[in-house]
């Protein structure tokens, strides 16, 4: 029977640990909340990884991976994508090495960096389903690597801890942000990096954190990390987005079917009663 289940019951860290310790070979398919991933292992070592969305598949092509790790430039990427679209990664890799564009080491390091990136994405998924199919191997067209899982598991555990901290502080991405009214604090004098400035530029009661993440092309971890920093520095506060349910809406559900006047009367009666205790 295939090894399968839910990430809430068996986390990514636990899965990798099992594959590592049992020296398993096969493909691990994980379907997260917005994205899927496919990882292939050989005797407990990571051989291949990619995200399964269209964008993920594109990112997993050798030219994209080499470009990502700055081994080739934009023009070379465009040329390779146009002219080598029908070549397998193995064929293309050999061609690039023989032509002196990159070394074998460059290719292997770039692949490993990309696979680590995929695994890091995976560690942020706390919901989703997984299935391990023994016997599946790296497609012939792809270049396999051999990466030990221990370091990845350690790094993943650190990320999980960070994720827990971030979600505790920012439990809901549908909240909005507002600048705190702190006299004497001039945002221009605070040392923010480019990513933080991009987020800051979208801060507005109308924009939920989720919308800001979409506009700045950040994933949930990246946006939470930045918002967490801004919150810790006391520069922003969490608020309900403009147009979201108000406190009055909330009170309406506490007094179903009562008019505003009746609601006020009920609250006054509660106050009188409490005073009399």
């Amino acid at each position, binding site marked *: 029977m295939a090894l399968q289940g839910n990430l809430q019951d068996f986390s990514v860290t636990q899965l990798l640990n099992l594959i590592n310790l049992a020296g398993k070979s096969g493909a691990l398919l994980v379907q997260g909340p917005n994205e899927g991933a496919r990882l292939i292992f050989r005797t407990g070592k990571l051989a291949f990884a990619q995200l399964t969305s269209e964008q993920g598949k594109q990112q997993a092509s050798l030219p994209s991976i080499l470009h990502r790790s700055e081994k080739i430039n934009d023009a070379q990427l465009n040329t390779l994508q146009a002219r080598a679209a029908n070549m397998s990664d193995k064929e293309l890799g050999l061609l690039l090495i023989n032509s002196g564009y990159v070394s074998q080491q460059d290719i292997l390091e770039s692949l490993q960096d990309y696979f680590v990136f995929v695994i890091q994405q995976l560690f942020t998924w706390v919901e989703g389903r997984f299935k391990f199919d023994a016997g599946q191997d790296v497609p012939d067209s792809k270049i396999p690597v051999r990466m030990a899982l221990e370091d990845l598991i350690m790094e993943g555990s650190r990320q999980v801890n960070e994720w827990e901290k971030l979600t*505790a*502080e*920012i*439990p*809901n991405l*549908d*909240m909005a942000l507002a600048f*705190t009214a702190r006299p004497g604090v001039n945002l221009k004098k605070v040392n923010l990096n480019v990513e933080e400035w991009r987020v800051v530029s979208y801060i507005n009661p109308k924009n939920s954190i989720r919308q800001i993440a979409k506009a700045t092309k950040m994933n949930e971890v990246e946006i939470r990390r930045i918002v967490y920093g801004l*919150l810790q520095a*006391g520069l922003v*506060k*969490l608020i*309900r987005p403009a147009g*979201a*349910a*108000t*406190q*009055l*809406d*909330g*009170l309406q*559900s*506490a*007094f*179903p079917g009562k008019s*505003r006047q009746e*609601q*006020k009367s*009920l*609250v*006054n*009666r*509660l*106050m*009188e*009663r*409490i*005073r009399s*205790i």
Partner: protein
Amino acid sequence: MENDARALTVKMVVTGPFNAGKTEFIQTVSEIDVVSTERKISSEAERVKETTTVAMDFGRITVDDSLVLYLFGTPGQKRFDFMWEILSEGMLGFIVMVDSTRPETFQEARNIMEAFRAFSPTPYVVAASKQDLPDAWEVEDLRVALRLDEDVPMLPCVSTDKEAVKTVLLQLLENILAELER
């Protein structure tokens, strides 16, 4: 019991980290013995008292035949936080209890407060509990530590002191009234 069936029932939620004084708070003003679901503590890390609430505490204040206020206390240990959203449904408002003597719980108090704010947009107040103990943080220091806005009421509290508990409840009701009068 017949009266209860006809009466309009409203509820407030008393929440906060483990051992913040939620059960005592409810016990102090409830007209019935609090229906408590306390069990012996299982976690060594949280063994600063013998028992903790595992589902909810439940107290009652009857106004008259037609109106009853229920006070629900949330479980203190984090692994019962799945109860929070259920308890927050249809609440009139909530009180966040913070143990003024345990700074290690301030961050958790803030997280709980943000979680409840996200569940339901109702008024809330923060009660700085155990203010009678010598190592209690001052309310204004706590406000800074919790990064509370000036417009969020924060009151000193001793959960076993009836007047202090009444003041917290009345402050929450005043905020609710102010919201209704806007």
